[in-house]
């Protein structure tokens, strides 16, 4: 397969758009010139002559953002290609406005050795539509028993470590992982749930789980683990990132840690920002996730935390599953939903509704994730890679399965009316997605 991200690029002028780039505190109409895959110039409207570009993108009425980053996706390759491949997952990514994704280690085999990391990197090079940054396992086989080859994986390009869906329950081992990872400068991402307390729980524990007859997973399972990760961070001073945080009290733990100056960060998923446990009432397995959908108070607290910047990052937890994993009894179905093509409109709604400022929203999708993984992206500064997302912010559309590029269609948002549509996604100066041509 051709390498989509290298080779000759054209020069592009993006004209007349509203450029919002928190990395340089910019929110105004600007023209942007792209040359040789880089941002060549950024200047007031009309200042850059169209003759300098071989292609002009008219962006009047559009928002022009640094290419978005999603640091929490499951691309399923190698081993689970019936759910997703690097090719299909990154195609969904660019269609959703993302120019970089970081993929979790729970492939088959698990990304717990330099060889698997190298494979993912090579597959991405030959098939990906956007930048792909592998996340390595913390422990071998995600088993929580022995450290994975962290140094070797970092040498091959791993940007963070996580056992994601399989929380490291052994606190001693987690402490050692945090200590060890400091030598390689990568953060640990924690899917913070106390597995023993989760037990067989399949939805948020409370009155509703009780009346639906489904085993509850209490908020305390998350809160305990967030508190533990913070305690270990205090002990080791190693950076720890809380994935898809979902409860009000877990957020309070993070607030106190940040106030104490600890290197703790957190992310929120679009679904935890949008949906409550009430959705589970129909036993539709597209509302089954880990952590589970919580109640209204938690959703409000999470929205507020993103607005304040307490939550640093919006990330999708894009989790493709086939019908064989989802068209099952609720307690037997897999956790998770796809999210790459719905993240922007779902979270943009919070901007339209005045819950989150526009700048904070863009920050959480650009500077926040980029800083976390120490990447040189998420910015439109001159000289940096030309990763750009052009968004039609007001456009209203209805999500249909024909829009989805992911191999899997496990999303509860089919049929939803969404506002905000990706117009173009540019990766390294190349148009990776164009809504006019698809």
């Amino acid at each position, binding site marked *: 397969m051709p390498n989509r991200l290298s080779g000759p690029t054209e020069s592009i002028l993006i004209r007349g758009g509203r450029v919002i780039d928190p990395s340089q505190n910019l929110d105004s109409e600007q023209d942007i010139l792209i040359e040789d895959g880089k941002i060549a110039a950024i200047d007031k409207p009309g200042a850059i002559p169209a003759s300098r570009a071989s292609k002009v993108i008219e962006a009047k009425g559009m928002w022009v953002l640094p290419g978005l980053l999603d640091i929490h996706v499951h691309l399923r390759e190698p081993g689970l290609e019936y759910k997703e491949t690097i090719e299909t997952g990154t195609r969904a990514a660019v269609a959703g406005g993302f120019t970089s994704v970081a993929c979790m280690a729970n492939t088959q085999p698990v990304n717990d050795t330099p060889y698997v990391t190298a494979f993912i990197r090579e597959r991405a090079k030959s098939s990906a539509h956007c930048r792909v940054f592998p996340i390595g396992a913390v422990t071998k086989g995600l088993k929580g028993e022995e450290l994975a080859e962290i140094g070797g994986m970092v040498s091959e390009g791993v940007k963070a470590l996580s056992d994601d869906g399989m929380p490291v329950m052994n606190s001693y081992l987690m402490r050692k992982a945090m200590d060890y990872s400091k030598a390689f400068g990568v953060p640990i991402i924690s899917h913070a749930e106390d597995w023993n307390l989760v*037990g067989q729980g399949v939805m948020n*524990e*409370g*009155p509703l789980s*009780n*009346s*639906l*007859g*489904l*085993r*509850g997973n*209490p908020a305390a399972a998350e809160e305990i683990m967030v508190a533990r990760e913070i305690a270990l961070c205090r002990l080791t001073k190693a950076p720890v990132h809380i994935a898809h945080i979902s409860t009000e009290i877990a957020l309070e733990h993070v607030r106190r840690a940040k106030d104490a100056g600890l290197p703790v960060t957190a992310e929120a998923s679009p679904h935890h920002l949008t949906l409550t446990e009430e959705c589970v009432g*129909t*036993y539709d397995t597209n509302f089954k996730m880990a952590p589970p959908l919580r109640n209204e108070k938690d959703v409000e607290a999470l929205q507020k935390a993103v607005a304040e910047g307490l939550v640093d990052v919006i990330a999708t937890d894009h989790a493709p599953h086939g019908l*064989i994993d989802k*068209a*099952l*009894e*609720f*307690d*037997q179905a897999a956790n998770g939903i796809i999210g790459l093509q719905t993240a922007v409109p779902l979270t943009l709604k919070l901007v339209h509704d005045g819950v989150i400022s526009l700048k904070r929203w863009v920050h959480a999708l650009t500077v926040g994730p980029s800083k976390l993984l120490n990447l040189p992206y998420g910015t439109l500064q001159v000289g940096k890679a030309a990763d750009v997302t052009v968004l039609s912010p007001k456009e209203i559309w209805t999500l249909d399965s024909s829009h989805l590029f992911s191999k899997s269609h496990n999303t509860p948002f089919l049929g939803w009316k969404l506002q905000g549509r990706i117009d173009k996604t540019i990766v390294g100066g190349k148009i990776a997605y164009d809504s006019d041509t698809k």
Partner: protein
Amino acid sequence: MKHLIAAADLKVDEIQKILAVAKIFSSYVGGKNAGEPIALLQGKTVVNLFFENSTRTRTSFEIAIRRLGGGALNFSASNSSVQKGETLIDTAKNIAAMGAHCWVVRHASAGSPSVLAKNTSVPVINAGDGFHEHPTQGLLDAYTIQEKLGKIAGKRIVILGDIAHSRVARSNIYILKKLGASVAVCGPPTLLPPNPEVLGVDFAYRPEELLPQADVVMALRIQLERQNRHQLPSIAEYSKFWGLNRERAKLLKKDAIILHPGPVNRGVELDPEVADSPTSVILDQVANGVLVRMAVLATVVNEEGLNQWLSQKGHRA
């Protein structure tokens, strides 16, 4: 009524009609109309789709189907393609394609009847799904209480045992409350829901607090594996503190009755002397189960036919 999936969704008049129809049917089973057939399920195939073991419920439905002239097909997961990995939806779609007129479903996963209702066009009767609901059990218990005590409104009903993992408790609470009873639940805190008050019932951890006021005590079965999941130190300890033994039975009012959905763990939740005492109506529950299920089947599969039959025969339900 298109389906009977959850007692929570039943309206008071729907409950009352089912109980009234069951009462009418009783005269055709052993009463003055005995021997006269009720052919309301003539030509209909009802499939007992059982993914969990059951003696009472399955047999009860089977007899009810036959008494209404229907064909009962018993499907049990243990000797089916489910063992070969066929999914619930595929299994149901395949049987539906052969021409089923009603599902009677028993499944360990809560929500399975809703999944079937969504994926096939066949009416669904829930015969127990996980911890969620067992509406026909709730109906037959209500029928039995009404039969024995004359009415349900105002009666104090104590449900004793593993409430958290009990579909029987949930369906009973919904139905009995709708019929005006005052319901309390009792059990070890590990076997009560985390917030029992949301069920709209009173609760206590120790039975001694509730038994003296009870008109009805419903003892629930204790799953013997609870001990392994740290929910009980031992079955013996459950029996010692929560079992309805002769001592605790003495706390009851003279005319109180004892129910149990079966199967009874003798010596655990009920002492044999109590289970077999005159206050125990366990076998009446079983007998009434057939009548109530006949009423439910007729209502779900052939409501129009049922209404015609009632008016032809001059019954009022």
